[in-house]
């Protein structure tokens, strides 16, 4: 399978701060590639270089078969970009926005209007088409933003934290829109700080830290590397914490982390159902009353702790 996005050894620094430090990436055509990492890991810088907005200090990148520096114009006909803000004109209506961007993508007047109507229909914005965008909800703005990026049906789409700042409903709306795109064969490069978002949407995930990809693979391949699922137990009284932690540690066969303030015990597990059943039974047998028991995916912070040995907010001192 051909690669829609290839980045090799990308470097970029701002003054003394290193944003990218030998960034490598390969996204096969027709897949969703998730770039997962905390704030400041270099995800946005990478996307901006790939979308021809920034020049790298070193390294090279190809998007849809064209070099992002030397053949920027060709790349721009083949990409869509959804940045962290909904980059649409707030004063104009949704349809006016799409026609404007269509014209700037060099569609004829009629073709631009037709494409705008198609996209409004597809992203369920037809009813709000003539309302000024400043009266749109966050989810609607994002959908319009997405629609504006898809005017030329580009083979490669960059989504930089597309659901940041959205409520759960808006997030669901955007996720659905992205899934529909992928079904059409678009290659998507998605950056996110949320493991569950990468889980929901991405075929392959690259974990980014300090300007470099530190782990890469499908979700299943990464599961063990990412530390797998976790079980959380909250006890009713602080006095039961030690006993419960020992118990959870014994059942899961791994060191349980204890959060004293939250009276919460957390441990990695391999089999969800077995772990849950056994923890519940063991607690019951020991006479410990749990206030809450839950299975969950690890947070990004836990993944980082697992992969790098440091939390997302701690930079290793150089």
């Amino acid at each position, binding site marked *: 399978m051909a690669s829609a996005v290839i980045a090799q050894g990308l470097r970029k620094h701002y003054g003394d701060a290193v944003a990218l430090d030998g960034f490598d990436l390969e996204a096969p055509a027709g897949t969703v590639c998730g770039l997962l990492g905390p704030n400041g890991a270099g995800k946005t810088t990478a996307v901006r270089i790939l979308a021809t907005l920034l*020049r790298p200090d070193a390294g090279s990148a190809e998007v849809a078969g064209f070099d992002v520096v030397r053949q920027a114009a060709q790349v721009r006909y083949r990409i869509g970009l959804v940045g962290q*803000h909904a980059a*649409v*004109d707030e004063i104009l*209506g949704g349809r006016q926005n799409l026609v404007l961007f269509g014209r*700037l993508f060099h569609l004829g007047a009629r073709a631009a209007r037709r494409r705008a109507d198609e996209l409004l229909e597809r992203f369920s914005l037809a009813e709000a088409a003539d309302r000024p965008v400043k009266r749109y909800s966050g989810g609607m703005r994002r959908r319009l933003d997405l629609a504006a990026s898809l005017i030329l049906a580009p083979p490669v789409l960059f989504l930089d934290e597309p659901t940041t700042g959205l409520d759960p409903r808006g997030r669901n709306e955007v996720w659905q829109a992205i899934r529909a795109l992928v079904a059409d064969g678009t290659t998507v490069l998605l950056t996110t700080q949320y493991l569950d978002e990468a889980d929901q949407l991405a075929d392959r995930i690259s974990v980014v830290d300090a300007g470099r990809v530190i782990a890469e693979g499908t979700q299943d391949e990464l599961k063990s590397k990412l530390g797998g699922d976790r079980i959380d137990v909250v006890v009713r009284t602080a006095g039961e914490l030690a006993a419960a932690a020992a118990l959870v540690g014994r059942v899961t066969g791994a060191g349980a982390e204890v959060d004293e303030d939250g009276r919460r015990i957390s441990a990695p597990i391999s089999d969800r159902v077995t772990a849950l059943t056994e923890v519940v039974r063991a607690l019951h047998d020991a006479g410990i009353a749990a206030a809450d028991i839950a299975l969950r995916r690890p947070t990004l912070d836990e993944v980082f702790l697992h992969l790098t040995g440091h939390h997302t907010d701690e930079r290793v001192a150089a």
Partner: protein
Amino acid sequence: MIGRLRWAVADGWTMTMRDLAHWARQPTQVVVGLLFPVLLVLMFGYLFGGGMVVPGGGDYREFLIPGMFAMTMLFGIEATFVSVTTDAARGVTDRFRSMPMAPSAVVVGRSGADMLNSALGLAVMIACGLAVGWGWRAGIGDAALAVALLLLLRFSLIWLGIYLGLATGSPEAVMALQILVWPLGFLSNAFVSPATMPGWLGTLAEWNPLSATAAAARQLFGNPGWGGDSWIAQHAVLMAAAWPLLLIAVLFPLSVRRYRRLSR
């Protein structure tokens, strides 16, 4: 090459139309913008006008109106600044830069729309001037030259607006700009003759590019209160062309450099 030029023109036109669509969406804002200088004319012409003395004698409103034309051109800088910073802050500038449109279209469209807006503003002010008894007393050719010099000043201020917009990048900074625009406007011959100011301040006011345009407009319209003893006051028309051209010569490359630096 021809293809590229064709797209530069077409994309520039599309961007101009975008701003015209903004006007249609926000007619109140446009009307308020057009009427604000009219309000100033009424305020200065009738409220303060009684206490004003025109050097060499003459009606104060005849003196005031060309100054207000120049002020109207200066006020336009706020519109330029807000448009540039709003696009940058919302990421719209990034979207444009990631698209295959002509890179020049952003500024061509900006200039086109701002110049149309200012021409309209000037037309409203001329109508307002005629209504309060102002008129052009010299030939129509001179009057046309005065209008051209006023629009040239506005054109140079577009580049100041674009440069400041790219440099600050935040629409909220317009508050600071508004505060700066006022002293810049008042420290000129727009409302009062620099001859009435303390010596050094008067010299500063005379060298204000706004004064050159206002004085040139007074001279070309045949209105009172232009000229003076200093070199600059005697060469108003020359300076009304030289100042804006100098501003453009400095700010145009600076703006282009700022724009390019976005990709650094």
